[in-house]
């Protein structure tokens, strides 16, 4: 059963530079379903639109980002909610209680002049009212303890914490109200390896304890191999392949996915790793046909002319590539 569903989702950055308009097609016709109690990974090179997709899924389209078309649905207590049709106050109430978010670069997301306990209080009080303030704080303390975070850091200011600690605090802050869905954007990027492992452990622990859904975005395929259950591969604003992680890593279909997997370091592998050849395209001037064709070693003549559809190749495995889809749309 899905908890988030995106249908034909398009969200573009519309920029006005020196009198002319530039359109960055960061999320371009994305269809996906995230299931209850799963870890859904999203991968792809930096700049392909992962963070923007998350914002669109959260219903946060602040200028210059604009929702062009499509729908995002949440399923809450058996009821389907159309995110972009909700009133701002209704959406505000869903945040943190139903769906929470750990943003990319969470180093700068905490108010620099407020103690952590106060920031926590701001979020708690805004959702649960100010009444049981003491109780709320006691709960926060317990929760920190449960997660293995020293409760005394509640008294600290953000700048007094290390990068890894700040990331953990942000995750704790996001999950304080036991949301049904947690969305984490590059939670391990910019941390050193040992700290990365701790942060991932914390995320999966919380996922298990809350029995909720985790949407995990990272360009690091190694993380997906270890943590995610299903994986969507994004390229130039589109989903190009999606399937179970076990299947994607053993039998990838899209040439781009194959490159991503080949670029992973393997145990005992001393040779240099191959990256994806070429450069990702500009999202404001996409190549014709399949956006990947200029970099694709297997490109067919049709790839240059027509865009392939995302087709179901096997049950639970979709791919957007002419190699598998002979008939045009």
């Amino acid at each position, binding site marked *: 059963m899905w908890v988030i569903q995106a249908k034909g989702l398009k969200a573009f950055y519309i920029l006005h530079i020196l009198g002319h308009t530039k359109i960055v097609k960061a999320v371009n016709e994305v269809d996906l379903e995230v299931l209850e109690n799963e870890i859904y990974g999203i991968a792809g090179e930096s700049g392909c639109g992962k963070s923007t997709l998350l914002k669109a899924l959260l219903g946060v389209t602040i200028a210059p980002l604009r929702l062009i078309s499509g729908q995002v649905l949440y399923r809450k207590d058996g009821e389907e909610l159309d995110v972009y049709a909700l009133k701002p106050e209704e959406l*505000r109430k869903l945040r*943190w209680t139903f769906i929470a*978010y750990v*943003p990319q670069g969470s180093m700068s997301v905490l108010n620099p002049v*407020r103690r952590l306990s106060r920031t926590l209080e701001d979020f708690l*009080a*805004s959702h649960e009212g100010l009444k049981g303030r003491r109780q709320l704080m006691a709960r926060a303390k317990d929760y920190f303890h449960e997660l293995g975070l020293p409760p005394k850091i509640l008294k600290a200011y953000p700048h007094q914490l290390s990068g890894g600690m700040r990331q953990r605090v942000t995750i704790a802050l*996001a999950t304080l109200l036991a949301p049904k869905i947690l969305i984490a954007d590059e939670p391990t990027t910019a941390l050193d390896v040992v700290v990365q492992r701790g942060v991932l452990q914390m995320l999966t622990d919380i996922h298990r304890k809350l029995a909720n859904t985790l949407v995990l975005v990272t360009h690091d395929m190694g993380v997906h191999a270890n943590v995610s259950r299903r994986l969507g591969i994004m390229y130039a604003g589109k989903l190009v392949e999606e399937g179970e992680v076990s299947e994607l890593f053993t039998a990838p279909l899209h040439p781009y996915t194959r490159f991503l997997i080949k670029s992973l370091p393997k145990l005992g592998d001393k040779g240099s790793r191959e990256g994806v050849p070429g450069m990702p395209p500009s999202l404001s001037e996409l190549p014709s046909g399949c956006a990947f064709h200029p970099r694709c070693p297997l490109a067919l003549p049709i790839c240059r002319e027509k865009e392939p559809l995302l087709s179901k190749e096997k049950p639970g495995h979709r791919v957007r590539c002419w190699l598998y889809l002979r008939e045009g749309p």
Partner: protein
Amino acid sequence: MRFFKEYLLPRFLQFLLVTFLGINAAFFIPRFFSSDPILETISTIRSHGTYLDPGSVEKIISDLKQLYGLEGTLGQQYLAFWRRLFRGDLGLSFFQFPEPVVRLIGRALPWTLGLLLPSTLLSWALGLLIGGVGGCYPERRWVKVLDVISMLVRPLPYYIFAFALLIVFAYVIPWFPLGGGLSIGRQPEFSLQFIREVLHYAFLPFASLTILGTAVMYQMSKLIVQSLRTEDFVQYAQLGGVKGRIIVFKYLVRNAMLPLFTNLVLSLGQVFGGAMITEIVFSYPGLGMLLYNAVVQADYNLILGITTISIVAVTTGIFLADLVYPLLDPRVRYQ
């Protein structure tokens, strides 16, 4: 301890150094001017048609030298100046002889402080708050109205604005007195009526300073808040469903205070120089008026006294601000 050594001590030394250099400048600069205050005074007396015989000229010169602290070599004058300064003696005013400069300043200071401290603080706080809320909701009607008002008021030269207020509210509609701090002959006393009169006389100068000051602060605060709104921690709190009121005050206005705090400190320091134009336009008996008269009458001791007080006030203000700032911004505490 680390706070003391790494934060407090360097700032204190800097405070002492800047104060010392400033006072030195105030001492030396007039001495490098070619104009000689003594000869000027004598020629002023002569120009009134008074006949001075050579003997009395000698006498006047030596009296004046003593009066201005101009006896002996430059080194001796310099030492004597500092010695007197530490005793709190700024010499005698020449044109209100034999009033000590300290007493003249002491008489003018309450007027200036009473006028400028409240108006500086009020316009800072008011501008910060209104500008902060305006920066959060730039689309609201009242914000747009305030934008237009502040855009009209701000570029006005202050003296024109002050004059306009005076003409409209003291002359055309005589709600307020045309000038002064009190009605003539009124003696200070502790009574409700006296306080009401002081407030009545202070209202127009106070309003002129506060309106213009608030307009300036409003624009600055609004700009800062608008750029703060795109900061990660603000957008994140918004996304996390934190209530609007908390975001406006605890996230936006609170952080906008940091860059604007410096403004407050500098204008508080300037309070001690008096608001010369305000005091002239409204004939207000404060430090600015005193300084103006001192300059017009070439009362060198008085000028030096007011300058010294202002220098000490500004540097002390900045030093105190450095002490308070870590309370506002926890990030500077251990730098």
